């Protein structure tokens, strides 16, 4: 399993960080030059610098967003809630409880609290969740 070291470990994204700092500095400088150009009445220059500056900021935002997505998304083992439905074939008594290991469909599980019948497992499935439907 020594080859597993070949996958770089998750750490602070230094590459992105440095790139963001450099782009940020140049974008700030561009914006400064842009506003200065407005102040001195050079509209064309001003438009050019402000466009450059804001593009830089947009790129920066995108980079931060991207690195955030990869670091925030945690690996998850899906764990769902499973319920068992028991029914009495004699009196129709019905009970729903959480799944227990050893449950199976059509298992005669426990005595009925209402009559002398035996509760039988009729359904085992994930808990109902009505999500969006197409």
């Amino acid at each position: 399993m020594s080859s597993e070291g070949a996958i770089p470990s998750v750490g602070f994204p230094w590459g992105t960080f440095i790139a963001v700092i450099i782009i940020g500095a140049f974008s700030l400088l561009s914006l400064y030059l842009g506003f200065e150009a407005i102040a001195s009445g050079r509209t064309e220059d001003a438009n050019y610098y402000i466009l450059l500056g804001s593009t830089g900021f947009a790129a920066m935002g995108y980079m931060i967003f991207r690195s955030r997505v990869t670091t925030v998304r945690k690996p998850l083992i899906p764990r769902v809630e499973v319920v068992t439905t028991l029914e009495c074939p004699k009196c129709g008594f019905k009970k729903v409880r959480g799944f227990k290991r050893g449950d199976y469909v059509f298992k005669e599980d426990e005595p009925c609290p209402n009559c002398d019948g035996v509760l039988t497992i009729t359904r085992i499935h994930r808990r109902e969740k009505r999500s969006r439907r197409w």
Partner: protein
Amino acid sequence: MVAMLQQPSQFTPPRSDIGVLVQIIFSAAFLLYLLYAQRIQSITMLKQVEGTLRRVKTLRDEGKRISIEAIKEIGKPDRDPTPDVERFLEHFFIQPVSLDPAGIVWKLEQLLNVRESKFEDEVRAMAPGASESELNNLENLLEAALALNVYYKVIRHFYLLGKKTMNLYIIMQIHMLLPLLMREIEAYSAALQAFREGMPIGDGVGALVAAKLMRGYEKREVAKDIVAAEVPWEGRTLIVLKAKGPGGNVGKPGDAIRNILRERGREVKAIITIDAAGKLEGEETGSVAEGIGAAIGGVGVEKYKIEEAAKEYDVPLYAVAVKEDITEVVAPMPPALFDAADKAVEAVQRLILERTHEGDMVIVAGIGNTMGIAQ
């Protein structure tokens, strides 16, 4: 610079030095992108593959941990099962050569039988305290962990190969497949919970339909891990069969159908197979569809046997499919699928009324993993 900041309005040359510098840098960036776009794309893709790989590794490790935990808990072994589980997860299967394909099904079957009995023995040795159905469930659990391990190793192979060669096309291959692979991987990781606890899974819907039809009638074993019951219904005799539950089992339905046909010969007027089928995006989970042919998945050995036997005795093959998503096949059964079993029972009954006459004999085979479903 300080003077510049203090009185910006006086700093008014036509184009400042800094302005030129900024322009050069941005033009350079543009040029760099123009020339190295492919390399940048490779690096970005590789980064994404790396993120997924890390996730798959966690899932793989989790699969191993859950397997070891379950074996310790259920199997009560007298020694640590970790090295045995690690050895099991590296198990491989060599497909028979297909240069001369005649007879390959029987070769494949023989290899699969050996694999199955070896796995059974290994799991039994690892978990001496487990009951027969618990052994079946543990075996399923270990196979899910093994599948996760294989996915992890294949993705890692392409990632490392891509990194070594920096070849866009090698990286693209794995990058393109990742979304589809991830769905399969997520399905297997959802299976870990179901297999450890012995819950009914999406694939069990065929077995559930058969269980509903044969409930209360006398059962006998007609092939390895397949039980059958004769059920009189509307003047017909239904021979209903399913894998033997409630342990995780698929049995050998092909052998069962062949054995019944040999026994009953041309009395049998129809064979109906019921199985879960992968749905297309947009189709609803639990919708029931009817068709012609043998509804059975897997490598094809059992399907081949069913088709051969049906041809030999000239019995029509009808199929009922219950649609489900690939992520639901081995995950704990969703309620919509459980309800679909009743709809499938109705579909089977309608099919029998339409296609057979009173006095006929019909084989109804519920295909699928019967984990958590008795009969």
